[in-house]
């Protein structure tokens, strides 16, 4: 057998602080339904389960992403042998028999299947199976408290490849500069970056820097924190070029009774001078429990084999996952068209402001902002609206399964699905591809990235700051000890997920870009057309958006109809609030009708071998390449041609 069980296997490209706990040579991994299998070594480390194919090219030490599972991503581990009942392995109930097969059910819809045909190696198989069960539990217990691998340091600067575009242009929103740069790009006059939360003392779960109205002093801003749950005050997310503002906030604190001075500050923050204010709550969106339930059902439905079932479509409908996708898209489309249609501000309000607000805020920007649809733009978007905004990734993705199973809800995966729907509906408007979304989907379970390990910036700050892209781990020779620490202690220095070079080859990364995408990196933003002045100066009209309708709504502290500016002066202006009927060209309006919302086959049905194929279909790219080639030829010929 060429597997060469005892012999040389490619060296395992370990992570810093990663220890191989147990390994079983002579294992085989089953490939798909076709029946083939690959020999190799099954490894269990303190971070993941990995399979090193015996003869895998391994040229660059790059572990093929399909050959490994991060421990937290393992959903169920089942062992079986011909002499005993199959058994679900947990740390508490260990294996009592020699396993012949291991089935690993993953949270990311994969199913890995190993078996150990050589009887001589039974003890190894036994040990590795138990080790996985133990390690998984241990990894889950660690959870947020990402243990800092000691002794690891910055890797040597390697010549390797030039800067990855992907990560170099991503704004991580950890420095003041990033916030300022982005605010400038948005052209949001009337807004400024406030460092009031720099020490996380105002609101622990909020980022250090907030976008607030320029007219509001930090001193006044401080008065508002107490009136919102988790002290998460309204702040700007996005500014539409024609003047609309998108804000997000937690609910009003039920117990707060602002005094008149506080009311002044609150209204300056919420209403400002920016036209009517629309409150959009999450009432029509699925709850966290709904999302979790739907995701579980979907996972069950998409296991290989289940798809052959009759009544599959009804079952799909029964999961309600697509319903949830639709309601999110619908909400986002409503908000986006409000913003595009008229100068107003929309405040997204969710009790905690940490889950569905992230989702809706990012979707609205995808719909309205062409920049967010470029690859770096999308990465920055996720960084700002999810990571910096304090989405509790570890709890929601169930990476901490022991403590809080109730809090698991794949909101982020729902967002990726929504994004995929948009991508599928508007293939020519996105700078990235399905392959990119898939990579992001799979990486969200990966514990080797700082991006999804923390619940908020503050927590991340406690664990240290991630490296700049130039300092990240290179897959070449693993982490290397070189020199000392740089610039003080860095307790945790996992790279952000945007450092795609770690897990994906250059070729694969090239597939992240959509050759049919919008021309140019990002079209230059039309300088905000402030053509629509708010008809009523000082009017404080507050509406809520519910069931596709707007309805007047008083703020909680308004006991009686508040003072309002007289709208009568506006009636003279013919445009009025009507404005231009034509939505701005960059606006995407997705269709949320049943036939238009689809199942993300390549993500959920990846158990089917045929779904794998064409995943990174090179057709368009090939055409574009040929075109380039021909043009080059022509050019050279023209040069050579004697005149």
């Amino acid at each position: 057998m060429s597997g060469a069980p005892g012999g040389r296997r490619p060296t395992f490209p370990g992570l810093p602080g990663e220890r191989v706990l147990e390994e079983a040579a002579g294992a085989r991994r089953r490939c798909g339904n076709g029946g083939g299998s690959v020999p190799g070594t099954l490894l269990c480390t303190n971070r993941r389960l990995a399979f090193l194919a015996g003869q895998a090219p391994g040229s660059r030490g790059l572990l093929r992403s399909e050959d490994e599972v991060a421990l937290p991503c393992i959903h169920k581990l089942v062992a079986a042998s011909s002499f005993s009942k199959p058994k679900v392995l947990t740390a508490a109930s260990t294996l009592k028999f020699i396993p012949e097969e291991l089935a690993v059910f993953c949270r990311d819809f994969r199913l890995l299947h190993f078996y150990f045909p050589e009887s001589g190696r039974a003890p190894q198989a036994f040990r590795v199976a138990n080790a996985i069960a133990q390690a998984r539990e241990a990894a889950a217990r660690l959870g947020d408290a990402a243990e800092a691998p000691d002794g690891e340091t910055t890797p040597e600067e390697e010549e390797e490849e030039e800067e990855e575009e992907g990560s170099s242009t991503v704004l991580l929103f950890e420095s003041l500069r990033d916030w300022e740069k982005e605010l400038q790009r948005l052209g949001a006059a009337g807004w400024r970056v406030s460092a009031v939360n720099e020490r996380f003392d105002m609101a622990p779960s909020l980022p250090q820097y907030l976008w607030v109205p320029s007219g509001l002093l930090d001193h006044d801003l401080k008065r508002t924190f107490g009136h919102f749950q988790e002290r998460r005050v309204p702040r700007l997310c996005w500014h539409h070029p024609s003047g609309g503002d998108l804000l997000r906030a937690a609910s009003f604190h039920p117990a707060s009774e602002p005094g008149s001075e506080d009311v002044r500050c609150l209204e300056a923050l919420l209403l400002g001078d920016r036209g009517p204010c629309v409150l959009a709550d999450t009432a029509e969106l699925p709850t966290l429990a709904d999302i979790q339930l739907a995701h579980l059902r979907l996972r069950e439905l998409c296991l290989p084999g289940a798809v052959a079932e009759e009544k599959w479509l009804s079952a799909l409908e029964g999961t309600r996952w697509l319903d949830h996708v639709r309601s999110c898209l619908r909400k986002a489309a409503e908000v986006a068209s409000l913003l595009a249609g008229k100068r107003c501000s929309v405040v997204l309000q969710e009790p905690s402001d940490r889950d569905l607000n992230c989702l809706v805020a990012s979707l609205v920007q995808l719909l309205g902002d062409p920049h967010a649809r470029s690859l770096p733009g999308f990465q920055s978007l996720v960084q700002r609206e999810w990571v910096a905004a304090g989405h509790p990734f570890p709890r929601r993705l169930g990476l901490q399964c022991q403590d809080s199973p109730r809090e698991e809800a794949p909101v982020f995966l729902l967002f990726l699905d929504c994004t995929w729907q948009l991508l599928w509906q508007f293939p020519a408007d996105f700078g990235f591809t399905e392959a990119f979304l898939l990579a992001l989907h799979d990486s969200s379970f990966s514990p080797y990235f700082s991006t999804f390990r923390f619940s908020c910036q503050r927590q991340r700050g406690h664990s240290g700051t991630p490296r700049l892209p130039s300092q990240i781990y290179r897959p070449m020779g693993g982490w290397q000890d070189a020199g000392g620490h740089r610039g003080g202690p860095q307790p945790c220095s996992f790279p952000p997920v945007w450092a795609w070079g770690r897990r994906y080859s250059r070729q694969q990364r090239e597939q992240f870009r959509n050759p049919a995408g919008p021309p140019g990196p990002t079209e230059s933003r039309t300088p905000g057309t402030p053509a629509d002045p708010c008809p009523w100066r000082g009017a404080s009209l507050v509406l809520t958006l519910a069931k596709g309708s707007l309805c007047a709504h008083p703020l909680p502290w308004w006991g009686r109809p508040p003072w309002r500016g007289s709208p009568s002066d506006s009636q003279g202006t013919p445009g009025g609030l009507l404005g231009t009927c034509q939505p701005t060209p960059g606006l995407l309006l997705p269709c949320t009708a049943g036939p238009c919302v689809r199942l993300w086959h390549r993500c959920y049905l990846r158990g089917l071998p045929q779904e794998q194929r064409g995943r990174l279909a090179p057709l368009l790219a090939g055409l574009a390449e040929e075109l380039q080639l021909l043009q080059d030829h022509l050019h050279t010929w023209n040069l050579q041609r004697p005149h």
Partner: protein
Amino acid sequence: MRLGVAALPRDRSFRCLPARDERWGAPPPRAGAMLGGGARAAKPSFVSYISPEEIHIKEPIEKEVNPHLLPGELLLCEASTVYKYVQEDGSNRGTYGKLVCTNFKISFLDDDSASDDNEPQFKNKIVGENDITLQCVDQIYGVYDEKKKLLTGQLRKYPEKLIIYCKDLRVFNFCLRYTKEEEVKRIVSGIVHHSQTPKLLKRLFLFSYASAAPNNTDGRNQTVMFETLEDWRDELERTKGNVKYKAVTTNEGYRVSEKLPLYFVVPICISEESILKYEGRGIPIWCWSCHNGAALLKMSAFPKEQDDSTSQMQKAFLDGIYKTISKPPYELLKMDDLSSSLPSLQDIQTAYTRFKQLFLIDNSTDFWATDVKWFSLLESTNWLEIIRRVLKKAIEVAECLEIQHTNVLLIEESATDLCCVISSLVQVMMDSYSRTKSGFQSLIQKEWVIGGHGFLDRCNHLHKSEKEEAPVFLLLLNCVWQLVQQYPPAFEFTETYLTVLSDSLYVPIFSTFFFNSQHQRDTNKSGECLKTQSGPFRFLTVWDWSVQFDPKALAFLNNPLYAEKPKPDRSQRKTARFKHQRQLSLPLTPAKPSTKRGFFREETDHLIKNILGKRIGKFINSSDEPPNSLREFYDSWHSKPVDYHGLLLPRIDGPEIKVWAQRYLRWIPEAQLHGGGTIATAAKILDLMEEVQSLQVKMDEEHSQSVSGDVHSAPMLRNSARLSSLFPFALLQRQSVKPALPTSTWKDLEDEDDLVKRDDEFVDLSGDML
């Protein structure tokens, strides 16, 4: 007969007034009213300031809109001041115009159509966007006092609204309230009579058209028509079936049967007597030969006989036939009685009737009402399941031919319905020639048109009997679409091609889909047409696409990404085929014997329920079933890279069978994406292809001679306007983008003085919103 235009004076400027208002959405009755509910009440309000008498007073005729008539087309009746709703979405938007009925079509002529200067990129020259051919009318409903009633035959009362459902899934809503009563009578009864009542074959427009505009094209088309013996011989040679099969002339003069084509192919050992004995029944007729020599045959079965002795004789006859064609040189024979292994025609018709109902949307309220249960409704129609079963059957047949090297004999009562579906599908899957445009057309010609599929009865073109109706050909197109959609580079044509082909079923200027058999066509072609003095009719064939489309539009029928087959000479073809099936990059070892793999399954039942519910069982099960050659064939093919010029197997798992969105959703504005859909990239690909081609041309020129002048002319790029996902079928100019929240609401809010006091009052944004 009264053909003249009703002497109704028109004044454009006056007429524009209400029409304009309507088109832009009449101002909502009152700020804040529910548009959805208030719509009906609002309807008549806009005419109130113009009394009917005024119409007569208004004088000079500025411009008369005349229908564009084809040669041989006669205007039968017409009505003016008909109001056509753009889409019955409760918003009342629409246009005024004239409704006419000719012996070819029902047509609505609005003012725009006369002065339309922006030509759409994709336009059918024969059937315009407001034309409905008489054969395309599915059902007509009249609305009486808000109640819908199906209109057939004689009418006693005339409706105020007319709803026409078309077979290509368009829905037209006409309001007749402002039309003169006599015109209403004439037009409604005219339309119902000409489109819904039984007709004689000779009254089909086909004949008037053919005598008025004889087909003068030389008919030299790449499509093989299979009307001559040579065509069949060539086909035999192409598939190398000529060793064991022969084309026979026995049916010349239709001596054998009127249902069989003039020429057809049978095994060499079949004698002429046996063909003649039972009018061709019980005779295996050749469809196609596979590269390994195995052949696909079809046979029409004997009807169930009461008489014992006759059935004994028939059985003996059949046994004799089987014996002859089962011994060498013929391969083993497998028989498949399609009438028992596939859904009946009745089932197919029922399923399709239910299925199309999902897309014949009266108004958007209905649409959103069904939307919630979309998937289960879709499933309950059973249409996708039928498609899946048909595809599965085709895979079975392909497996027998390809792997088991057996001949397959498809049996069906007349061998002209499901036999055609399966044999065509098998050829599309196995013969890459059938995936080119001309190959596919030849295939339709061979199996369907000449093969004797009863288009006239199955489409119920003559309204003779509803019982015979069954969308068999549409079923084939739906199945082929699944393949096109799963493997786009393998097909020279696009889904748009299939869509326009399905529409052409109802355009009676082509003979292709308007006869039951070659015999019927031949007899009617030459028959009693002497009085026209023009000799036999010369019909057009649908394959001449330039009749319907301009070259610009034709570009959308061709797949720019078709992986064209390299053209090696014949000897090399075989090696080329194998080259494509390269090895997987991973070292695979053959599967372990299945005995070993079974254990996981047997004992896991209990466990599996505990883990994730019973479905896992199927996963573990899926590879461990008792040796199932079909499943193995399917799985092993799917685990290899696709060779676009080799065998192509559709994926038939539940999630893989999809709705042919282009055909079925194209008229539904709610499903429209502005700037989205597959067309968004398709347009880019077309641009790229054109650029590549033009560059290639330039390079060739450079090679051959030195060209003077500047070579750098900017490549012509398609205008990069954002298309709708429903392109090329949507009526773009009408339906401008509709934001999810219409901005007009703001106006209402603005006007509202004491909005805050009305805390609990909802301001509905739009009746049709989500």
